[in-house]
C-alpha cells in the first residue's frame, strides 16, 4: 500500500489522500485546510440571507445563527468526508472559536456604542474648556481630565512604593506566620468593594478635618486602597519568576542581601513591575463610587489635590447624565465623550504596558 515512490502503480489507481502516508491504512480522504473558514463563511452568508428575508437582522442574531448552522454542518461534512476523530476535532475547534466570539462580542459591542455616541462631542473644546457657568450646550471636561490625572497620579505615588515593598517582603524576606498573614490580608483587600474604600478614606480624613470634607487627596487615598493589593499581587508574581540562580550568583560574589534585591532582583523584574503598575492604574482610573464620596463634584479646574473639590472623568460622566443641563442631549453627549476618553486612557495604558514589557523586558527564559 506504499505510495512513496511516484511510479507506484497503486498510487495512480487510487487517489493519494485515501492512503495514510504514515500507516499505509486506508482513510476516507482529508479536507483542505480552509475547510472550517469556508463552512463559517458559508453559514454566515446563509444566516444573513435568512435574517434579511425575515427582516429581523441584528449582529447578535447573526452570530448565533451562524454558530448554529456551522457547528453541525462542519461535523457532519467532516464525518462523511474524513473520519470521526477528525470530525470531533473540527467540532471542538469551532466550539472554542464560538466561545471566544461570545466572550468578545459584548466588548466589541461596547466599544462600538461608546465610539458612536462619544465622537459627537469628542472635539477640541471638550479638552480645553471646563463646565464653569455652562448650563446648556458647550463646555467641556478639562477640569475632569486634569482631576483624573492628578487623583490617579497621586494614588500611584502612594501605592507603588507600598505595593512593591510589600511584594519584596513577601518574596525575599517574609517567612512563617507574618508572611501568611500579609498574603491573607492582601487577598482580603483585593475583594474590598470600591465604595467601602471611598467611605474608609472619607472617614479617615473626616476624623481630622471635620465632616463634609472633600479633597482630591482623599480620592487618591481611596484609590490607593484599591490599587495596593493589585500592585502587590502583580509585583509578587513577577519577583517570583526572577530565577533563584541570579540571586545565588550575586550572593556568591559577596553581595549583601539588600543589594541583591535592589541591584539584581528589582532591575531584572523592572519591565514586569512597570507593566503591573500600569495595569493597576488602568484598573482604578475609571472608579466612580469612591470618588463621588471623597472628591466631590465641581465645575471648574482644580489642580491642587490638597485643597478644594476635584472633578474626574467618571464622576463627570455620571453627573452629566444624572443632572443634565437645559440642553439634555448636549449633556448626554459630553457624558459619552468622557466615557470614550476614559476608555482611550485605559487602552493607551494597556498598550504602553505591553510595549514596555516587549521593549525592556528581560527574557528570563534565556537565563534558565
Amino acid at each position, binding site marked *: 500500500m506504499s505510495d512513496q515512490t511516484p511510479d507506484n502503480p497503486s498510487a495512480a489507481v487510487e487517489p493519494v489522500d485515501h492512503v495514510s502516508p504514515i500507516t499505509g491504512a486506508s482513510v476516507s480522504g482529508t479536507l483542505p485546510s480552509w475547510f472550517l473558514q469556508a463552512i463559517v463563511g458559508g453559514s454566515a452568508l446563509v444566516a444573513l440571507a435568512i435574517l434579511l428575508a425575515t427582516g429581523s437582522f441584528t449582529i447578535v442574531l447573526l452570530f448565533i445563527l451562524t454558530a448554529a448552522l456551522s457547528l453541525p454542518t462542519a461535523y457532519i461534512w467532516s464525518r462523511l468526508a474524513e473520519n470521526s476523530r477528525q470530525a470531533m476535532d473540527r467540532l471542538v475547534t469551532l466550539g472554542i472559536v464560538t466561545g471566544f466570539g461570545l466572550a468578545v462580542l459584548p466588548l466589541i459591542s461596547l466599544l462600538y456604542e461608546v465610539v458612536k455616541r462619544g465622537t459627537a462631542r469628542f472635539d477640541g473644546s471638550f479638552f480645553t474648556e471646563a463646565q464653569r457657568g455652562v448650563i446648556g450646550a458647550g463646555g467641556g471636561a478639562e477640569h475632569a481630565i486634569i482631576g483624573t490625572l492628578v487623583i490617579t497620579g497621586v494614588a500611584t505615588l502612594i501605592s507603588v512604593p507600598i505595593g512593591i515593598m510589600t511584594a519584596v517582603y513577601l518574596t525575599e524576606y517574609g517567612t512563617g506566620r507574618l508572611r501568611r498573614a500579609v498574603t491573607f490580608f492582601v487577598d482580603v483587600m483585593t475583594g474590598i468593594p470600591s465604595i467601602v474604600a471611598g467611605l474608609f478614606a472619607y472617614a479617615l480624613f473626616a476624623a481630622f478635618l471635620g465632616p463634609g470634607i472633600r479633597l482630591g487627596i482623599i480620592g487618591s487615598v481611596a484609590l490607593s486602597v484599591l490599587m495596593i493589593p493589585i500592585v502587590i499581587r502583580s509585583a509578587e508574581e513577577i519577583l517570583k519568576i526572577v530565577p533563584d540562580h*541570579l540571586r545565588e550568583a550575586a550572593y556568591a*560574589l*559577596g*553581595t549583601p542581601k539588600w543589594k541583591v534585591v535592589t541591584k539584581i532582583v528589582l*532591575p531584572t523584574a523592572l519591565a514586569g513591575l512597570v507593566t503591573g503598575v500600569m495595569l493597576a492604574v488602568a484598573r482604578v482610573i475609571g472608579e466612580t463610587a469612591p470618588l463621588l464620596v471623597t472628591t466631590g463634584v465641581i465645575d471648574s479646574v482644580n489642580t491642587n489635590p490638597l485643597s478644594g473639590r476635584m472633578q474626574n472623568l467618571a464622576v463627570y460622566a455620571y453627573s452629566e447624565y444624572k443632572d443634565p443641563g437645559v440642553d439634555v442631549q448636549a449633556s448626554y453627549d459630553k457624558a459619552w465623550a468622557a466615557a470614550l476618553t476614559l476608555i482611550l486612557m485605559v487602552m493607551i495604558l494597556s498598550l504602553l504596558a505591553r510595549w514596555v514589557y516587549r521593549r525592556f523586558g528581560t527574557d528570563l527564559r534565556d537565563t534558565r
Partner: protein
Amino acid sequence: MTETADKTKSDRHAPVATDLAKTAEQGVKRGPDKVERVAKRFQAKDVNLYYGDFHAVQDVTMTIEANQVTALIGSSGCGKTTVLRSLNRMHELTPGARVEGEVVLDDQNIYAPNVDPVEVRRLVGMVFQAPNPFPTMSIYENVAAGLTLNRRGISKTEKSDIVEKSLRGAHLWEEVKDRLDRPGSGLSGGQQQRLCIARAIAVEPEVLLMDEPCSALDPVATLAVEDLIEDLKSRYTIVIVTHNMQQAARASDVTAFFNLEASGKPGRLVEMDATDKIFTTPSKRETEDYVSGRFG
C-alpha cells in the same frame, strides 16, 4: 562504613600532601607548575549538613589544599553539591538548611558566630551548574558586577583593568573585546560559563567553588573550561563538583568520593586521595566499583 571507620579515615588525611609529593616524583600530575599567589586552604571538621529534618551529609572531615584542584565525585544525591555549598555558606540560604561542625579557611572557622557570611563569600567565589550571567547587564557590567556591587570608590580605569584582566584570565577576552557593551545573555553557553568564571575571579577570591560547571556545555566548551581550571590553580584553590569521572581524572589533583549507603540515608565521604590513586588503586572497594562503572 561505620562512624569509627570514618574517623580513622579522616585522621589519615593529614599526610595527603606527602602522598601527593610521592606521586609527583613518579611523574604524575599534581599541583600547579608555578604558584603565582598562595591561596587559602580549607579544612572541614566533622561537618554535618541538614535540610530541615533531613540529614543530607554526615561527618565529613577533609582537607582541601591550596592551589590545587579538588574534585568531588559521587552518584546523584550523595551530597557533593551540598558540601560544596557549605564551603561558602550558600547552604544556609535554603530555607530550613543548617550546618553543624567546623569549616576552617586557613585558620578561621567560617561558621564561627562572629563571621559575616557575606565576607566569607567574598573570599570564596562560586561558579554554578548553568551559566547565569545577570540578564540586565552587559558583558562588561557582568564582569564588573562584584566590584560595582561591593566595592565603593573604585575608579573607572581600575575597573576596566580588572575587567580586562579577568576576561583574559577566563580565556574570553579575545572573543568579546569588541562587544563588551552587548548583553551577556547573547553569548554561547560555553562563553557564558567563562563569563561567569570571569565574574567570579574579578573580585579576587581565595577559593573558587565550581558546581558541575561543564554539565550544560558541549565537549569543546568543556575542554576550554578545563584548560582554564588548569590555569587558574596558580592563583586560586579550586573545588569542583562533577558527575563526569573523566573530567575529574583530567582536571583535578585530588579527588574525594562521596556515597550514600542507601537512599534516604545521609551522604558521606568515602575516600579522598590523589586523583591518580583514586582512579587506579583506590583503597576502598566502594570507590573502585564506582570509578570502574560497576556501581549499583
